[in-house]
């Protein structure tokens, strides 16, 4: 690094030194509050049994061991259903559910913002309205609908509803509205391209940040899907469900349970790290109009 003479002492516009110090201290302390439980989990997951039950309890591990992780594996393989089955279920519903969600909501978003047809405004308004209530409101009727469809005890009951998530459609529509100029579509139509070709070859490549965002949000939800009221068969249950059973095993399993949450966290956090900039780009143009 070169040392420049007469270094600029001007601060950025409207930023006082005192304010910077105060703000960064607040950020640091709050960051610790957010981070410490996660570090405590990781540290507990590495503690041998005698350290988990030491008094007074220690925050950091002294003699790290992988025993909790191997224990976790043996507890899970000890159950009637092989551990790999839970892993398969979770990966399967996450991948298929996410894929379907991205494709169906992108198609719908494309038509809603680039086609003129009767009913499109009503459809979009209803979808925006549905952002305003949580899925808890719909659990009971959904159970009835699942039984009518004969989808109780099938993975379809977890996968198909995920296709229709309204946040994904909303974000995709806002993104397409901003990022796809009508002139591009007109030019393609004059060249004789059909609507499905335009959608798959022109529109989708232009909205990559948006579908990466949809992938992350949808995947996170499905990956963390816990026990539901539609699945009773043990061999169709999810990894999250299996992991949460570990904790139900009582206090002796604190270490294994911490190991379980560390393992479950790795996938969504890694995906977020890889796609953070795309997500931010999508959200920056997805606000709501008054």
């Amino acid at each position, binding site marked *: 690094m070169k040392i420049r003479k007469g270094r600029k002492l001007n601060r950025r*516009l*409207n*930023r006082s030194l005192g*304010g910077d110090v105060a*703000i960064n201290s607040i*950020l640091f302390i*709050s*960051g610790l509050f*957010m981070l410490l*439980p*996660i570090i*405590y989990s990781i540290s*507990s997951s590495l503690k041998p049994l005698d350290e988990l039950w030491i*008094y*007074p*309890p220690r925050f950091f591990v002294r003699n790290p061991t992988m025993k909790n992780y191997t224990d976790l594996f043996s507890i899970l393989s000890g159950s009637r259903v092989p551990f790999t089955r839970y892993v398969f279920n979770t990966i399967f519903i996450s991948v298929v559910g996410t894929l379907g969600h991205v494709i169906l909501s992108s*198609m*719908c978003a*494309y*038509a*809603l913002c680039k086609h003129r*047809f*009767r009913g499109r405004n009503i459809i979009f308004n*209803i979808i925006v309205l*549905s*952002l*305003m*209530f*949580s899925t*808890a*409101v*719909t*659990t*009971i*009727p959904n159970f009835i*609908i699942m039984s009518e469809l004969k989808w109780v005890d099938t993975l379809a009951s977890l996968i*198909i*509803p995920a296709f*229709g998530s309204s946040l994904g459609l909303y974000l995709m529509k806002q993104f397409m509205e901003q990022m796809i100029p009508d002139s591009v579509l007109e030019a393609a139509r004059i060249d004789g391209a059909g*609507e499905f070709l335009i959608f798959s070859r022109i529109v989708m490549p232009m909205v990559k940040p948006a579908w990466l965002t949809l992938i992350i*949000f949808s995947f*996170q939800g499905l990956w*963390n899907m816990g026990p539901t009221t539609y699945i009773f068969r043990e061999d169709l249950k999810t990894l999250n469900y299996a992991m949460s059973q570990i*904790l139900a095993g009582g206090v002796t399993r*604190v270490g294994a349970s*911490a190991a379980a949450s560390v393992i*479950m*966290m790795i996938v969504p*956090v890694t995906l*977020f790290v890889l796609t*953070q900039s795309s997500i*931010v*780009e999508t*959200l*920056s143009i*997805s*606000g*709501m*109009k*008054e």
Partner: protein
Amino acid sequence: MTLVKSVKRRQLRKEAISWAFVLPYLSVFFTFTLLPVLTSIFLSFTDFNLLQTPNFVGAANYVRLFLEDDVFIKSIGNTFLLALITGPLSYMLCLLFAWFINELKPVVRAIVTLVFYAPSISGNMYLIWQVLFSGDAYGYINGMLINLGIITEPIIWLRDTDLMLPIIALVALWTSLGTSFLTFIAGYQGVDKSYYEAGAVDGITNRWQELWYVTLPLMKPQMLLGAVLSITSSFGVGAIVTSMVGFPSTDYAAHTIINHLEDFGTIRYELGYASAIATVLFLIMIISNIVVRRLISKVGN
């Protein structure tokens, strides 16, 4: 004549293509979101219990809910208390932290964003709070407080009816910096830097003025989206209660509307009554959204 016909036919063909694009998504959305809400409203006026054919009972479920069900009244109070903490407080914190983070250099910004966002995507990680607040001397917080000499006996945090709600609020707050937080991060980054210079020329002299008069008004769209997402999740606290303090909590001290809904829906199978609970929750969420939208449109004025 034939020209008119062919124009009309082409118009219809175009509409058919549009519907081919929207129908797959809409059929799923209709079946699992719209139809359930309508069904729920309908069932709330019946005595449906899964076994017998439902009878129409008028407003009886609602009368029972508000006049006879003390636990429900308690759960409304708890839900609003939790929603007030995890809603507005979390919203303000998201807005403030995102603003602080926006001042950092890109690499640091990405890391700090991850630190704040991670709890909301880490699934069951919040269960560690149960270990931290464990009621014996091995619980980390008890151990620490005893060690510092602040208390002599371990506090049974998660069974104490006065402490339950604050602890749940704390945990809910910890997991609540989610999508709306990211939306704000994105919103701040989307503000054109030239507005800040223009603001300084117009006499803005510190960062708080800049935030209120320049930045936030430009972020209204993100603030609205964030508000909608915050409200929806702040009224939806249920799973955290069950896993932190058990179900039902001691004296229903932490019972929320969601817990009440689960109780009647998935344990007692009084689905008509549970539907009335769901409908009330639905209305609370929608009305809160309308009120908050009004408030946000006042920002910067």
